[in-house]
């Protein structure tokens, strides 16, 4: 299951989507929005995606995972739009016969998503808002 959604992510549903009787190990990564950033209180967050490309890049991650590790099922769901503090913005689940594969594949998937998938986060503070991406600040001209 590869998806970009505008509603809260149901972790139980993502888990169910990777459960198979042959799998003994499932690793699930849940990325949640934090209430602070660069020392300031974050009130809420908003995610924007270049959706058709983001979905393609997410599929590439699944393909890469499957070429490197013997995984049974793979799921990756990203939420976009406004996301409240403490809510899940990303859920990745991997089922495998052995736990090492599940852990490594899941870790690889979130690392690669954060580097390659065209999705952007905007943090909304009491005194303004900012797109995250240039290591948290705009580059100097």
């Amino acid at each position, binding site marked *: 299951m590869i998806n970009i959604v505008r509603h809260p992510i149901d972790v139980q549903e993502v888990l169910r989507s990777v459960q198979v009787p042959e799998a003994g190990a499932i690793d699930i990564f849940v990325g949640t929005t934090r209430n602070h950033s660069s020392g300031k209180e974050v009130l809420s967050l908003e995610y924007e995606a270049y959706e058709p490309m983001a979905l393609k890049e997410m599929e590439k991650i699944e393909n890469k995972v499957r070429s490197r590790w013997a995984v049974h099922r793979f799921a990756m769901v990203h939420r976009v739009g406004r996301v409240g503090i403490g809510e899940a*913005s*990303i859920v990745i689940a991997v089922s495998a016969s052995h736990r090492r594969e599940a852990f490594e594949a899941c870790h690889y998937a979130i690392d690669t998503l954060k580097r390659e998938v065209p999705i952007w986060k*905007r943090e909304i503070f009491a005194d303004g808002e900012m*797109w995250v991406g*240039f290591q948290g600040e705009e580059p100097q001209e």
Partner: protein
Amino acid sequence: MITVNVRFFATVKDLVGADEIELMLEEGALASRVLDHLAERYPRLSGWRKHLRLAVNSEYAEGTRLLQDGDEVAIIPPVSGG
């Protein structure tokens, strides 16, 4: 001449003030020409240029990629999903 659709996201969208624009380029133009054009129109973009990636038809592309009429070129600032 060819026409390409250029799409903007996040910081770049805020700077340009639009989701997308149409751009006419000479036949044989490479993807990097799009950034040249934008840097002329929006001088602040030139300072960010080394941080920007390009995508053509929803796939990352090098600046040396040959553009075709009707291509969708996206300017991809550093991503921050997850």
